[in-house]
């Protein structure tokens, strides 16, 4: 399950941020390692919502700083 989520998070991140797949490791920070600015983060979160059919409220966006955070957050939402 979480491997599937990781793969889909990677796919969306590669597409949204225009980064290479090998850069998208669990420890990578979207803003510090993958070059996302504040607008990119909003767009990325919306893409996660679309990909997984979930709702990510603004006040919870702060929990998602790294690729691993995204996987954990999304796994929790889907369970």
């Amino acid at each position: 399950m979480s491997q599937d989520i990781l793969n889909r998070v990677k796919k969306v991140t590669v597409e949204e941020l225009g980064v290479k797949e090998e850069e998208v490791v669990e420890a990578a920070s979207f803003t510090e390692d993958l070059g996302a600015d504040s607008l990119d983060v909003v767009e990325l979160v919306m893409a996660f919502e679309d990909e997984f059919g979930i709702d990510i409220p603004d006040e919870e966006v702060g929990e998602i700083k790294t690729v691993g955070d995204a996987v954990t957050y999304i796994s929790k939402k889907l369970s």
Partner: protein
Amino acid sequence: MSGQPVPSGRVVVTGMGAVTPLATGIENFWPKMLAGENGVGPVTHLDPTEFTTRIAAEVLDFNAEDWLEKKEARRIDRFIAFAVAASTMALKDSEIVIDDELRDQFGVLIGSGIGGLTLMGDQHRRQVLQGPSKVTPFLVPYMIPDMASGFTSIVHDLRGPNTCVVTACSTGANAIGDAYHIIKRGDAVAMLAGGTEAPINEIGLAAFSAARAMSTRNDDPAHASRPFDLDRDGFVIAEGSAVLVMEDYDHAIARGAKIYGELIGYGMSGDAFHITQPRADGGGAIRAMKMAFNRAGITPEQVGYISAHGTSTYYNDKLETMAIKDVFGEKAYSTPVSSIKSMIGHTLGASGAIAALTCLLAMRDGKLPPTINYEKPDPECDLDYIPNVCRTADVEYSMLNSFGFGGHNVTLILKRL
């Protein structure tokens, strides 16, 4: 900082780039234009089945990823991507070397009549169908018309005057004219100036159809754009961009630049008459032309080529002809006039810039582009429109007209050096 150099008061064009329905790149599209090729076809950017107009002049050889980073190419509106592409080509063509001192004196003025209408339409649909939280944060930055200038300045790190003109279909000509004044008065040494437009989307096609401005010759797109022909029935919507490197004359000479020509006249006026129709006596167009001649210090007798606004609408072509006759007198009948819109359709805010670029190429090569689809003369349009076949002519001065909804009238006069 060494401060601003003393301006020469003369402004020349030293580089050019274009994205047009005939081709991308000036040396690609220009031979096609001289051959009188048609750039109009069935709409492919969307399913046009439900629309009254189902034809357009689309740019089909353009890939935004060739000009932008992948992430940006995917998100950006097409009108900005066109401007970046045309600017990149123009800078390369100019061979200008931009050091840190020049960077601060190098500006950008690339207008758009409409801005990011495709993105606007897509995001509006998302907002309606999926809710307000689904609207992209990039809608505002990539929709606003000034982002063509803003984004281009970021891509090329140009830190001089940065602004935008929005005057509907006369945008591109106004941008070039305004950039000329910015350089002339010494606020910049060089400017990227021009226009860009990408209006071929659902809402754009629907809106211009509703305005009853477009040709509905859907079964014969190749003959739909027919400026000055008796059977014309409206303009053909198009997309594209043209950007010029405009430069202070002394600066261009000092670096041994190739010079396409000098902008010597810029005139503009307002019709103060109707939101979409030109004034019935052509008065606005006449005043714009007279202002340009006054600035240029030449007479209409000296002009060897007129690039007409020539949209292929009943009113424009008739009233523009009338206005040219008023300003040129008897000389109107012996001055070649053509409308490149017969081949590339109406690129709206880019059209004046594409026309300026073609005037400079025409003077360089001594070849005037034709008005294609000219078959049936209209008694009210009785000038020499260079029908169907390009013409060889030695031209030292050319003039272009560009008019826009809102009653904007612009005339530019260019000189070969």
